[in-house]
C-alpha cells in the first residue's frame, strides 16, 4: 500500500478484497454504481463516491474456456473458465465460476460470491446457485 499519499480507489478496492469484502463505488451525486475502481464517476464525472459492499448475488453475462495458457501461470490449469457477471447492484466484473457442468450454457444463470485463497490473495469467485 502507498503510505506516502492517500489511498487510491483501486488500493481501497484491493484492501477490501483482502478482508474478504467485495466492494464497488457508488456516485454520491447521481447514484451510478461501478467497477473497476476509478476517481471519476463515468456517468457524471463527479469525484464524490461511497464505497459499498456487494451482496454477492450476480448473474452470468458470458463466459469462455481457455484451452491455451497465454499466461504461463495457468499452464497446468487448462482448461479453465473466465466469466463476466453483473452484480445485482449494477457493476460488472470479471471472475471465475467455481464449477460449470459439462455442456451447459450458463449465460443468464444466477451465481453467488465465494472467496477462494489463490494466486497469493483472496480471489472473489462465484458459484452457480
Amino acid at each position, binding site marked *: 500500500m502507498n503510505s506516502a499519499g492517500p489511498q487510491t480507489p*483501486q488500493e481501497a478496492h484491493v484492501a477490501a478484497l483482502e478482508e474478504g469484502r467485495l466492494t464497488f463505488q457508488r456516485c454520491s451525486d447521481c447514484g451510478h454504481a461501478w467497477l*473497476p475502481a476509478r476517481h471519476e464517476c463515468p456517468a457524471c464525472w463527479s469525484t464524490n463516491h461511497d464505497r459499498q459492499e456487494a451482496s454477492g448475488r450476480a448473474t452470468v*453475462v*458470458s*463466459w*469462455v*474456456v*481457455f*484451452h*491455451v*495458457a*497465454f*499466461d504461463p*501461470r*495457468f499452464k497446468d*490449469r487448462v*482448461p*479453465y473458465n*473466465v466469466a*463476466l457477471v453483473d452484480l445485482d447492484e449494477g457493476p*460488472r*466484473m*470479471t*471472475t*471465475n465460476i467455481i464449477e460449470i457442468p459439462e455442456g451447459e*450454457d450458463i*449465460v*443468464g444463470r444466477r451465481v453467488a460470491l465465494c472467496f477462494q485463497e*489463490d*494466486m497469493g*490473495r483472496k*480471489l472473489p*469467485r462465484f458459484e452457480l446457485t
Partner: protein
Amino acid sequence: MGANSVIAGIGQTAFGKLPGRSTVSMNIEACGNALTDAGVEKDAVDGLLVKVPTSRVEMMYGQTLAEAMGLEPRFGGVFDQGGASNISMIALASMAIEAGQCDVVLVSLADNPKTGTRQAYEKSWGDAADFGWSSVVAGYALIARRYAHEFPGAFDLFREIAIACRAHGASNPEAQLKLPLDAGKYDNAAWVVEPLRRDDCCLISDAGAAVVVMSQRRARDLGVAAPVPVLGFGQGNSSSDVTLRHDLTQTRADVSAETAFHMAGLSPKDMDCAQIYDCFTITVAMTLESYGFGTRSELADLARSGGFLCDGALPLNTSGGLLSETGMPGLQLVLEGVRQMRGTSTSQVKDAKKCIVSNQGGIMHTHSTLILGQ
C-alpha cells in the same frame, strides 16, 4: 454526395514470415509499390499517415517513417484506433485534401508479429489477470458465447464465414494460407478459447500495405491509370473494454455504416461485394448484421446457400481476408476492394461496381467503414 477523393494506387509486401524486416522497411516497400501502381513520383507526396505498429509501439513513429522515406510531409503522423485506423486514415486524408491541407497522401500499415512479438495479442489484462484473463482471442470468445446464447445458429454461420474466406484465400496466389476449409475440418479443429476454434481465428503475419489518396482532379492531371473513387466513409467507437460493454453483441458499427451509406447516397442492397474485417468469424457475423445485410438468421441462410462465395449474393472477403490472405490488421481489405472495382481480383465478382469495406480494432472498441465505387 460522396467524397471527391480517389484511391490512386495500392501496394503491399509479401505476406507471411519476413525475418529481418523492420516495420519501417515494410512500410517503405508497400508505399513504393503503391506509388508505382499509381504512376506517381515520390516528390508528389505531401501527406503521410501511418498506423502505429501493434507489436512495438513507438512515439513519433510517423516522423520516423517520414525521415526514412526522405519526406517532409505538410500533413502527417500516426493514427491509433487499432485495426480501424486504416479506413479512418483514408477518411482523414480525403478530408485534409478537401480542406486544402495536402494533395497526395500515402496511407500505410506494417507490422511484424510473426517474427517479432505476439505479446500485444496474448497479454494478461490488469486486475483480472489472476483469474487467468488474457489475450485478444478470449475477448472475442466472450462476445461469441453471448451471441451463440442469443442465436442458436451462430456456429453454422461462423463455419460458413470461415469456409468462404478460406476458399477465396486458396484462389489468391499472394495469400499466406492457401488451404481450403470444409465443415469437417472446422468442427474437428482444436478449441483456442472456447467457443472459438482454430479456424475462427485470423493468421499471425508479417506484412505491409499502402494506398495513395488524392483528389479526382489531381488523379486526372497526373494521368493515374485506374483511380477508384471513395464514395463514403464513417466511423463509430464502442470504446469500452469488452468486459464492461453494456451489450456484448452490439457495437457502433451500425453508426459507422450509416454515416458511410448516407455520405455515398447508397444502401446495403447497392453493394456488389463486401470486404469485412475478419479477425475472428464472430466479427464478420456482427458487422454484416450492423450494416443492414440481414438478421442473424437471414445471414445464416445466406451463408448456407453459398451466398458468401464469389458467385453468391454477397461475395465476402474475396482475397481471403485476415483468416486466409494475411492477418495484417485491415488495409489488405481496402486493397481488395480496389481490385474488385478495377476488375482485377483473383476471385473477381462479375460486374462489381460498388464495394463496402469494414475495419475495426481492439476487441470491437473501434469501427470504420469505406464504400468504394467505379
